[in-house]
């Protein structure tokens, strides 16, 4: 195997698709971001009688599952499959001929609720359908969604906890940048599940109150769900067939913080290294960044570490955590927030960090309302359990 490294390839975003509590598709998402919509509602998917927290940001099943148009085979699929399918349908509407060589996507739990059903059925002395078992594994959702649209590409599924989506996009970016691939479907997905909800509840990382990233009275995260996909293509290849270019990915940084399995190093060194690497790869100075979509989970520990790193590195560059509106969708978060950052660049506005009342750190928080702004570069951060830290740089495409 020979390594012929090309490091100068530019990576274009030629299409995107998204479904999240903010809405179905780019247009609804943009509208919700501009309106600073709080999408957090009481949990309906399972009992929360015995949990501290009772809320999450959820996708409406009525719209998602499109029950009237489901085939018998479709009815066996997990909700996460529908989310991926919805995002992919939107992406392919814009890029009908997009044929990825590989899909690189992030998730943390795939079809977890099917696993829960399996365990409960077993405990009740029942026998599960093979379909329930077969649709549980984490690669099924992306593979099945691709099949629906006649795409049969290998699926490289990255499970780096809450950084998965950003890691997937970042790794895809590098694979194109180095000339290893020309077209990659990248993104992430996760659906709300009882096990994960109770898990964060047990850690007291989730809050029974409002999600207030970077607020001095923040008390934890609210979970969310969704899927987002990007069609990434080597720029010259995209130009050669006249693709409309929505933006570029220009940098990626990844670091591992070995401080603790679930807690970041409070000195913020892990996030800082990821951001520095991403900036270096994008050949950017910190003051050239116009917007930071923070990981911003609203936990005391994350926001302190991330906020410290951002303040030290970027000074007063505008920052927001859009998780305040749509919750933390774990493996999907990085992908969804990449799309949010892309929309911000395209439409020249700063998405808001809602529920913000009182600053603790010296950060320029985009508090409570969206702001118009002129900027060319944005970064999106994702950090996760296991000390994984990932940052990508997005650039507005100059024709």
């Amino acid at each position, binding site marked *: 195997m020979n390594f012929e490294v090309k490091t100068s390839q530019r990576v274009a975003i030629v299409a995107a698709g998204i479904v999240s509590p903010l809405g179905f598709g780019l247009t609804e998402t943009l509208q919700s971001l501009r309106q600073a919509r709080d999408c957090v509602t009481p949990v309906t998917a399972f009992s929360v009688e015995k949990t501290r927290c009772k809320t999450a940001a959820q996708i409406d099943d009525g719209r998602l599952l499109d029950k009237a148009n489901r085939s018998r085979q479709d009815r066996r699929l997990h909700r996460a499959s529908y989310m991926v399918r919805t995002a992919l349908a939107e992406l392919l509407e814009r890029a009908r001929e997009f044929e990825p060589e590989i899909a690189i996507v992030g998730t943390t739990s795939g079809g977890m609720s099917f696993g829960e059903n*399996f365990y409960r059925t077993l405990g009740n002395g029942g026998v599960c359908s093979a379909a329930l078992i077969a649709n549980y594994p984490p690669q099924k959702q992306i593979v099945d969604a691709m099949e629906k649209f006649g795409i049969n590409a290998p699926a490289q599924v990255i499970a780096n906890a809450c950084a998965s989506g950003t890691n997937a996009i970042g790794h895809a970016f590098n694979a194109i940048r180095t000339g290893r691939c020309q077209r990659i479907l990248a993104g992430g997905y996760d659906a709300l599940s009882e096990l994960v909800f109770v898990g964060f509840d047990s850690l007291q990382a989730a809050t029974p109150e409002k999600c207030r990233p970077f607020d001095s009275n923040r008390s934890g995260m609210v979970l969310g769900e969704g899927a987002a996909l990007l069609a990434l293509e080597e720029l010259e290849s995209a130009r050669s067939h006249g693709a409309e270019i929505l933006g570029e990915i220009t940098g990626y940084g990844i670091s591992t913080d070995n401080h603790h399995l679930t807690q970041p190093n409070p000195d913020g060194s892990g996030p800082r290294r990821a951001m520095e690497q991403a900036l270096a790869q994008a050949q950017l100075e910190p003051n050239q960044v116009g917007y930071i979509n923070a990981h911003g989970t609203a936990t005391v520990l994350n926001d302190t570490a991330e906020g410290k790193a951002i303040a030290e590195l970027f000074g007063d560059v505008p920052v927001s955590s859009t998780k305040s509106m749509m919750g933390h969708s774990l493996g999907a978060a990085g992908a969804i927030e990449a799309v949010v950052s892309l929309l911000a660049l395209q439409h020249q506005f700063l998405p808001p960090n809602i529920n913000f009342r009182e600053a603790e750190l010296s950060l320029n928080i985009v508090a409570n309302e969206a702001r118009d702004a002129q900027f060319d570069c944005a970064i999106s951060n994702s950090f996760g359990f296991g000390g994984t830290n990932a940052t990508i740089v997005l650039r507005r495409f100059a024709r």
Partner: protein
Amino acid sequence: MSLSIAGMSWVTPLGSNVNDVWQRLVAGEAASIEILENEQNGARYLVRRVPATTMAHLPPHARLRRASAISRFAAAAGLAALAEAKTPPSLDRIALVFAISNGGVIYTRRFYAEIVKSGAQSASPLLFPETVFNAPASHLTAILEISGASYTVVGDGAVGILALKLADDLLASEDVDTCLVVAAEEIDSLVCEAYRQWRFLRDPKKPETGRGMIMSEGAGAVLLKRSNDGIEIDQIVPGANFFRRSEASARLGSVVSRLKNGIGFCVGSGNGTFIDRAERAAVGDEMPVYSPKIALGESVGASVFWQLITAAKALEAGTLPGSSKPPVDSRAVVLACGLNQQTGGLTLRRRVCPAFQGST
């Protein structure tokens, strides 16, 4: 520059010393079979487990105090593969790629069992973090003090190919010099029951029959670097997905056709299910095929690494267990077919000089 194996190790039900296990495979030995019983429904499964003595030499580490078996297997294999390197890799320029299919299922089951039995308020905050797919990788980066890139790749039994492909891409980016690729799995009754209900498991009343798979556990690890010596991974091909079992042979055949000519033998992923026939159809009747799963069991996410190490040893030794001697200087193909959609393959070849030093 090529992608070469600078170190390799495994933890298997037949032991963890690469040469010893290899010799036992050549001698036709198989790991002993135990019976595992499911507390929920009383079902019984044939399993091949890693003997407790195999893990006795794992150095203590704070991260492993509460960790599940999967993390211990991974740590043992990862540390041993690193120890194989002639020159210790720089910790600043090493990446970890981890492959997993079922993951930390023991703690996941225990965590969820408490929720079901006693309610959400009883859920353990100590167990939950260990249920996350990348928990074993996190423990390993902490033990090895790797602070750069770490990826956990999930999928079915072919996930190892996709993890190796990721490692290959990382090394091509020149951000790293070496990449430790590790895969691990642990046995749990819940996973066994899922495969039983899916009708893939061997009937516990008929252990001698070749039909159906026997679950196992353990880990495999390879240290990859860019160089031109030793055993080299020539080509990695992640394959297309199949949606019906009858499509598996065509997908595998497509993988084989994309791999370079001159393949002398195949180390396959046959496990007593439809995969056996699919692989045979893909490589043809003439190709010598050996699956270490016959002797070691089905370790799902870890299995590609057992196959890879078996193929490397076969190239080194010039012999394939249960088969006539493969052609000298031939390439080996490692073929992987998961039970649930994914396929892939890679080719290995041996550089004649200098001599391969990569085993204990």
